[in-house]
């Protein structure tokens, strides 16, 4: 015991570095054991869980796609019957969109954004814990249902009336609709946390024009989530009501409207694409800057492009409905707006090209994935322009051409940057480096396998092969390319397998990583790898876009925070001027109980509307426990 233990309200200014770290650790660290694991609110632990869970869902979704490729390799194959096949493609789409792509991007942000803006924890950390449990419960609900042959079989878009009470008997469509609720809740929670973290918890001095581009992209993405998710929430709730209590939102015979569903779904569904893509834009910008040894060209243009994309994203949804029979004039407007998104996207591509041109490229694995992204995503963008044209779309809509298109956009545009990002931030997250040689092999296999698998699908679509068919007749001219595609999928799968092996092996026994292995310029590299529970011993102060380059000697810091309670600095929205010391909530088990109570309510309500009444009782108890004043210093503040 040191004399300082008796000092009330001990501040970091009073302590030397060693003593400060010891005390911060005891204030911020997650207790060991199961209880600690269940009640932690550390954004890094939760973010890591989120990332790992999302990658598990990626692997599961990948296995489903291999099952489909096995079935489609030959005409009239009988490996999988229509009922199972419909479940499989629905599961593949639903899983990849709701349980992998969106959550993994948010997960990366949950881990990285607080570090990149130089704060100690995410805003609303207990809500963050709650959001993870909700996400996990939603994922388990979907996969357990699938395992017991109750997986949804109505497509990831669940068009009515096919998903309505008349044509989708049983509970399969309800599982889909309720799984949406889980992921909505968790996504909205994270979005709110990120907006507040970015707006109010940035390091002193990090004005809006000095925010790393990844953080900007997550800010725009979070707003997209906040504005897009309510549409699907209304849609899925209306669907559940139609199915459970006999409302008629979507039944034309009773004055409902079938296209209402499509409008609501795609008003969410199109921004969803950008919810997945914009974080990837941020990842690409980060990786490009680091591996060309210069800041990204045209920072302001890049930020404007992000915002413009975010706004335009809400004006495009009708291009998913070009063959639904809407008025031609209206469709023409949506052709124009859909094409217009090529302008901000083009600007981003050109800025990255300019950055690479002006910089000094270092060909490490993360950068290879970015190069792969450029090659593939631009093809996806081109086919995107094609399907934006109404007449063109009438021929390729709902065919394998579109399957090819959106895999080029989503895998090329989001998964390639994500894999690059994993190779890039892996040392920060785990404290160990991934293997460069295996990384190159994984990239080569995934790049080759991806193009060989998906490029021929463009041609299959033009040759008249529709989507979502479980087999085709031998007289159709599709069997050769389908076999080729299925064989290529094996290469792609091998690449992913190699990636997973490398990640697991490196996490266990990779070479130990220094704090800043890539000589990067953003704040997350200013702390150790992996970062301590409190992220930074002293709060960094930022005066430029590249704090670690411009202050290569030592980073200026702010001081005056308490060390015996969880405290961080709140700064102003625009200039990031320090405004207050704010306490950050400590560990709590109540988010878990609340998530469990919510889960019970939501799953129970698949079976009876009374669940909403009786299920709210345990939820109310859990929330009361969550918000009950505990008399800690964090509560007092």
């Amino acid at each position, binding site marked *: 015991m040191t004399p300082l233990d008796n000092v009330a309200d001990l501040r970091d200014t009073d302590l030397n570095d060693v003593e400060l770290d010891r005390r911060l650790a005891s204030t911020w660290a997650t207790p060991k054991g199961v209880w600690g694991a269940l009640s932690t609110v550390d954004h890094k632990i939760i973010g890591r869980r989120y990332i790992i869970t999302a990658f598990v869902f990626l692997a599961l979704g990948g296995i489903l796609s291999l099952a489909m490729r096995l079935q489609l390799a030959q005409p009239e194959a009988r490996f999988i*019957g*229509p*009922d199972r096949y*419909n479940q499989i493609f629905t599961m593949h789409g639903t899983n990849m969109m709701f349980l992998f792509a969106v959550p993994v991007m948010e997960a990366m942000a949950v881990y990285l954004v607080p570090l990149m803006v130089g704060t100690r924890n995410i805003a609303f950390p207990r809500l963050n814990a709650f959001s993870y449990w909700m996400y996990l419960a939603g994922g388990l609900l979907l996969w357990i249902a699938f395992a017991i042959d109750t997986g949804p079989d109505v*497509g990831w878009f669940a*068009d009515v*009336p*096919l998903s309505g009470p008349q044509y989708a008997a049983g509970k399969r469509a309800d599982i889909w609709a309720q799984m949406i609720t889980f992921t909505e809740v968790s996504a909205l929670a994270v979005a709110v946390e990120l907006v507040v973290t970015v707006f109010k918890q940035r390091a002193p001095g990090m004005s809006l024009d000095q925010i790393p581009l990844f953080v900007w992209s997550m800010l725009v993405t979070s707003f997209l989530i906040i504005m897009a998710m309510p549409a699907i929430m209304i849609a899925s709730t209306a669907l559940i009501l139609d199915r459970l209590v006999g409302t008629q939102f979507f039944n*034309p015979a009773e004055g409902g409207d079938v296209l209402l569903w499509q409008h609501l779904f795609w008003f969410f569904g199109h921004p969803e694409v950008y919810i997945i893509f914009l974080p990837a834009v941020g990842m690409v910008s980060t990786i490009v800057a680091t591996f060309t040894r210069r800041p990204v*060209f*045209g920072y302001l243009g890049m930020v404007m492009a992000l915002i413009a994309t975010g706004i335009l994203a809400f004006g495009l949804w009708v291009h998913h409905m070009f*063959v639904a*029979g809407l008025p031609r004039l209206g*469709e*023409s407007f949506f*052709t*124009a707006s859909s*094409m217009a998104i*090529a*302008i901000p996207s*083009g*600007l981003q*591509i*050109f*800025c990255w*090209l*300019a950055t*690479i*041109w002006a910089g*000094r490229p270092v060909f490490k694995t993360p950068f290879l994935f970015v*190069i792969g992204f450029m*090659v593939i995503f*631009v093809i996806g963008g*081109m*086919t995107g*322009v094609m399907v934006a*044209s109404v*007449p*063109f779309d*009438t*021929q*390729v*809509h*709902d065919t394998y051409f579109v399957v090819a298109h959106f895999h080029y956009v989503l895998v090329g545009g989001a998964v390639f940057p994500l894999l690059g990002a994993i190779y890039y931030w892996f040392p920060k997250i785990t404290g160990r480096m991934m293997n460069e040689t295996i990384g190159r092999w994984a990239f080569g296999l995934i790049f080759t396998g991806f*193009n*060989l698998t998906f*490029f021929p699908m463009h*041609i299959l*679509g*033009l*040759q*008249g092969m*529709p*989507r*979502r068919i479980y*087999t*085709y007749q031998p007289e159709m*001219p599709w069997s*050769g*390319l389908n076999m080729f595609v299925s064989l290529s999928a094996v290469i792609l799968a091998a690449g992913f397998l190699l990636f997973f092996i490398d990640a697991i092996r490196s996490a266990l026994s990779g070479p130990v990583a220094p704090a800043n292995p890539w000589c990067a310029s953003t704040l997350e590299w200013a702390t150790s790898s992996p970062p301590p529970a409190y992220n930074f011993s002293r709060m960094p102060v930022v005066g430029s876009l590249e704090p670690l380059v411009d202050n290569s000697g030592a980073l200026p810091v702010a001081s005056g925070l308490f060390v015996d309670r969880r405290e961080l600095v709140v700064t102003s929205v625009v200039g990031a001027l320090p405004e207050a010391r704010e306490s950050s909530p400590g560990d709590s088990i109540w988010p878990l109980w609340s998530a469990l109570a919510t889960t019970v309510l939501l799953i129970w309500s698949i079976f009876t509307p009374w669940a909403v009444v009786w299920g709210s009782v345990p939820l109310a108890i859990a929330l009361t426990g969550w918000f009950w004043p505990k008399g800690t210093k964090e509560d007092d503040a």
Partner: protein
Amino acid sequence: MRMSPIIWMSTIAIISGCTGNQSAINPKGAPAIHIAHLMSGIVAVCTLVWLLVMVMLVWALLRKRSDAGEQARERGLTTTVSAAVGATAVIIAGMTIASFYTTRDIGIPGEAALTITVRGQQWWWQVIYADPDPALTFQTANEIHIPVGRDVHVQLESTDVVHSFWVPSLAGKQDLVPGRTNSLLLRAERPGIYRGQCAEFCGLQHTHMAMMVIAEDPESFERWAVAQRGNSVNPGKPDAVAGQVAFIAKPCAACHTVRGTPAMGTTGPDLTHVGSRKTIAAGLLETTRGSLAAWIADPQTLKPGNNMPMVPLTSVELKNISAYMESLK
């Protein structure tokens, strides 16, 4: 992507080799031809743009670097990037305009159009040739005959879920939405058999929901229409006669209509002239006595989940009903 030119070339080889009766890139009808022109234009421009971007990428990655002239370089980059964004805007504006014009060209059926109503059902197509004179109205299933060189206005309706009518060699697709009537212009420039299939996922047997569009010269079309309008011919051969009796006595007649007999069910396809159609079960099997027998004996194995139940029949009844069906030319 390095592979693309090779694959494009191989595509052309594949396309030219096949009959292509369900292909957007082997168009045989005016709307599909207009669209194919637009498609090749857009694909050509996009390929060119992609190649340019790739050349820039390779150059940016591999160029020799020197330290001099940093400032001038940034300025040059700003100009280049702005120019590229400007070019993007011009290109997409061009494509948007081209797209508008194509939409106009394929939109409106002419005055003399023949009107057909197609009603999507899980999982087959009901085809109605309506006439102001109800006596001249007739219906068929999964097979549409049209006269070559004449606009055909297809009215699209659905009785259950959303389907999509797509005969790629003749026109783009259009959804059949319950509670609405959509329309589509169809026109064949050359006689032939054009296959189409449901393009919007519509449940268990979405896969097996095909139809044939048979384009023929106006005289043949008229002959066909006259024949279809007529009631079914009474069978002559003894097995078909026995088959008719069995068909009417068994549950078959509860779902199917054979005009000119007491069979007046409307749940399933109208079978008045089923023997004249190229395929049965929405494109699943070619119409032969054998395939009819196989289908009637066990529809659930051939098309699992479809709405036709397996009706228990003796082997003699099965043989006779198949003979009767085949005789319904």
